[in-house]
């Protein structure tokens, strides 16, 4: 279970990783797509900006060129004016005044900064700013190149910082010829301010616009701080050359910090990248208009709209993708959980199955189609004594006795692999210790989806003990039957003996009773016949004596009479005694008379009404008569003694079966079912007597409902036979 849990976690981890990878991949794809799109977009944008910038720059350069060339013709015109020539040729106040007027006029009409006239030596003769503090008049500008060129007959333009005015400007110079155009009289110069150009063409913007000389000195810039600074780093030599040229004042010309690493990029001190583009300006060799654009800013400029437009799209796409991935993840997790649950169930059930298989204390094994053992239960291993490792893969029949092997190969295996089922196959296993074990094997085939048997599941039940016990049982049974036979014989013998004994006993009992009766009869007879007769004889004599004496001696006669009475009493006693012992009437007159006499006797001696009913009774033997008489005597005696009855009815009758003697009273009765108390009543004696004559005695009585004793005796009707 722990392992499976671990595996679960692993699966989860793997799944998570896969999904994360997927998510990442999706993200990357989106990003890459975005990026590529962005990249191409940017490239196009950059190109477009570049083009824009270029065209702007071109425009600017053109403008600048145009502007810088603007005053070439006016200076030419100026130089051709007579007054100026006059002033140079004939220098006097008047001519100078005239010249100055012209200059003023020019300056004013052309909106120049200043225009002035130098002589052949470079000394300023006339100037439009002659009245200003920084008047050029008298100053020598012969160091200026524009002068040098012009004095040599070539008009020139020159960009420089005014040494006097300290203002940047464009200098236009043209030689002033004499009338004959033969010699150069001086030089006419117009200086136009660049401030206007600067404000107009170099507007304040994020881009840096520069107008630099061939050495890199920034002459015009839309950033004030950059003016007269060095765009590129220069050697001291070059700087001193610049210094000497006096073109840009006195310096110092600090380095702006820009450096050019690549063709397209320029970095400043802060390593900020700038896009660099430059254009040459016509008529100013090596002067360049430089445009430095902050690359980042451009990027920003480019990306901003892109991101503004594409950002939401991309983020929504990403969010959607994320949600999709999340949903997929959840679905995947749910699916996996479900599957895992199912798997877990399956695994559990399989484990349970395996557990049950192994732990069930039954011999279970499975074989494949080749008859090799592929699985056995623990109990199997335990019982057989082998080690599991040694069993698996072996032929099942290798654990059989040769007979079982033959049986299995020839009969059972073919049958099993065709039907897939067999039951109660008797095999004999051979254990590791060599012991044999009888088993009953039942198995069924486990089928694959094609309904082919792939393995078996077999249960072996150890029946060795059972077989042995069965054998033992058989033996025991035989023995038992022998015993039982013997016993039967013995019982028969004993029964015979017992019967004999019983008969003997019965006879004995009969004899005892008979002899008892005989004894009684004998004694009674003796009493009655002998003593009674003697007494009778005595009485006869006594009566005679009494009769005789009474005539002679009355006293003696009376005495004899007393004797007579005594003898009478004695006779009665003897008769009673004899009667009790055995009534003569039974012997002399039979049962009916005896019973009648008995009842009369009882009635005489009690207040109970004794009713005797009878019909004609055939002659019966003495024993039976005695028995019935005694039963009646006992029953009536009991009634009289115990029942408090007022009427006792004795009935003697015959029916088809025999004699029935019934003694019934209306007394208190007794509990016939619980005759512990009545044992003393001689009931057992009555029963015995009834039994001895082959009769049956029924006693029925209920408390306070009287009792009834009924004796039935079967009689063989000799008379009719």
């Amino acid at each position: 279970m722990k392992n499976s849990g671990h595996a679960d976690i692993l699966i989860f981890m793997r799944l998570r990783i896969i999904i994360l990878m997927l998510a990442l991949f999706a993200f990357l794809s989106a990003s890459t797509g975005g990026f590529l799109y962005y990249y191409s977009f940017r490239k196009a944008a950059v190109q477009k900006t570049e083009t824009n910038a270029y065209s702007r720059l071109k425009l600017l350069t053109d403008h600048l060129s145009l502007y810088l060339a603007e005053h070439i013709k006016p200076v030419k015109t100026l130089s051709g004016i007579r007054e100026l020539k006059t002033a140079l040729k004939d220098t006097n106040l008047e001519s100078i005044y005239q010249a100055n007027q012209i200059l003023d006029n020019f300056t004013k009409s052309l909106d120049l900064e200043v225009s002035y006239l130098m002589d052949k030596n470079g000394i300023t003769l006339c100037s439009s700013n002659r009245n200003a503090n920084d008047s050029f008049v008298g100053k020598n500008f012969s160091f200026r190149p524009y002068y040098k060129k012009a004095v040599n007959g070539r008009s020139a333009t020159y960009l420089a910082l005014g040494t006097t005015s300290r203002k940047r400007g464009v200098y236009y110079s043209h030689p002033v010829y004499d009338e004959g155009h033969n010699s150069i009289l001086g030089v006419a110069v117009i200086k136009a301010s660049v401030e206007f150009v600067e404000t107009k063409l170099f507007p304040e913007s994020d881009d840096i616009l520069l107008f630099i000389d061939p050495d890199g000195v920034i002459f015009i810039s839309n950033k004030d701080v950059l003016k007269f600074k060095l765009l590129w780093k220069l050697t001291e030599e070059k700087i001193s050359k610049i210094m000497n040229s006096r073109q840009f004042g006195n310096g110092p010309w600090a380095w702006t910090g820009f450096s050019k690493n690549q063709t397209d990029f320029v970095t400043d001190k802060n390593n900020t990248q700038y896009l660099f583009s430059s254009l040459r300006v016509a008529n100013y060799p090596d002067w360049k208009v430089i445009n430095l654009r902050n690359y980042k800013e451009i990027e920003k400029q480019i990306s901003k709209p892109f991101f503004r437009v594409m950002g939401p799209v991309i983020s929504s796409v990403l969010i959607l993708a994320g949600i999709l991935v999340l949903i997929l993840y959840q679905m995947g997790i749910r699916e996996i959980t479900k599957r895992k649950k199912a798997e877990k169930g399956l695994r559990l059930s399989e484990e349970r199955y395996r557990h049950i298989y192994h732990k069930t204390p039954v011999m279970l094994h499975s074989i494949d189609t080749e008859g090799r053992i592929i699985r056995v239960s623990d109990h199997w291993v335990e019982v057989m004594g082998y080690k599991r490792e040694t069993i698996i893969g072996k032929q099942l029949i290798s654990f059989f006795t040769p007979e079982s092997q033959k049986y299995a190969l020839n009969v059972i295996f073919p049958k099993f692999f065709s039907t897939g089922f067999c039951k109660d196959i008797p095999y004999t296993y051979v254990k590791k210790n060599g012991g044999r074990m009888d088993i009953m094997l039942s198995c069924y085939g486990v089928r694959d989806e094609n309904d082919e048997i792939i393995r078996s599941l077999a249960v072996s039940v150890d029946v060795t003990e059972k077989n042995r016990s069965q054998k033992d049982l058989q033996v025991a049974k035989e023995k038992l039957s022998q015993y039982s036979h013997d016993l039967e014989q013995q019982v028969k013998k004993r029964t015979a003996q017992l019967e004999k004994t019983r008969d003997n006993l019965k006879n004995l009992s009969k004899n005892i009773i008979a002899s008892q009766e005989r004894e009684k009869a004998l004694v009674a007879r003796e009493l009655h016949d002998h003593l009674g007769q003697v007494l009778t004889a005595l009485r006869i004599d006594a009566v005679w004596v009494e009769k005789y004496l009474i005539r002679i001696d009355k006293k003696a006669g009376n005495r004899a009479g007393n004797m007579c009475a005594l003898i009478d009493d004695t006779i009665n006693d003897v008769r009673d005694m004899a009667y009790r012992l055995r009534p003569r009437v039974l012997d002399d007159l039979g049962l009916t008379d005896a019973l009648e006499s008995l009842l009369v006797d009882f009635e005489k001696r009690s207040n109970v009404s004794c009713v005797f009913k009878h019909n004609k009774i055939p002659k019966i033997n003495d024993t039976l008569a005695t028995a019935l008489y005694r039963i009646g005597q006992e029953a009536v005696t009991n009634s009289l003694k115990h029942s408090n009855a007022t009427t006792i009815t004795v009935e003697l009758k015959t029916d088809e079966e025999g004699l029935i003697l019934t003694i019934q009273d209306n007394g208190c009765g007794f509990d016939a079912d619980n005759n512990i108390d009545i044992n003393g009543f001689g009931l057992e004696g009555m029963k015995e007597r009834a039994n001895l004559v082959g009769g049956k005695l029924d006693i029925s009585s209920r408390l306070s409902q009287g009792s009834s004793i009924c004796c039935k005796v079967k009689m063989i009707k000799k008379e009719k036979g």
Partner: protein
Amino acid sequence: MIKVLLADDHSIVREGLKKVLEDSDEIKVIAEAADGETALDEVMNKNPDVAIIDISMPGMDGLEVVAKLTSYCSDVPVLILTMHDEEQYVIRAIEAGAMGYVTKQSAPEQLVAAVKKIHSGGRYLTEKASEALALRVIRGNKNQTLNESLSMRELQVLRKLAMGSTNREIATSYNISVKTVDTYRARILKKLSLRNNAELSRYAIQNKLVEL
């Protein structure tokens, strides 16, 4: 002189009886027998006027002798003499054909009279014996089922009452107490669903329990 055969197996008793008989001077014992066969032979041979026969004798008993004599068409009247005083014997003896019945005990007082009575052609029965006979006749009458429910003593008392005997007289004659007699009377009335002695008498007469 009345010639008598005396059959008794007890010689002493026989001697005594002989003495009683001969003392009367009217009776002469002409033959004696100690058993039934002898008695029968003597009766047939000697032809006495009266045969006095004891019931209890070895061999053939007295009752058989009487029965035999009757079957032989003997006209010798037989007086049964016996030690037994049970009514059953009396009835049997009379049924067998005897003309009289006397117990040995009462022989000294009654024997001579009995012999004389029988010889004169009458029957000799004691009161008790004749009652027993009557009762036997009554009981033997199977039509009267009601009587069956009465005991012998009850029948006796019923008869006496019907004949007008008082309780005291009945008590005396049966040697029982007056109270017992009364008990019997009540019991009889109840058994027969009668109310008084008058009804009782009528019942007895209607059912021929008493002879008028």
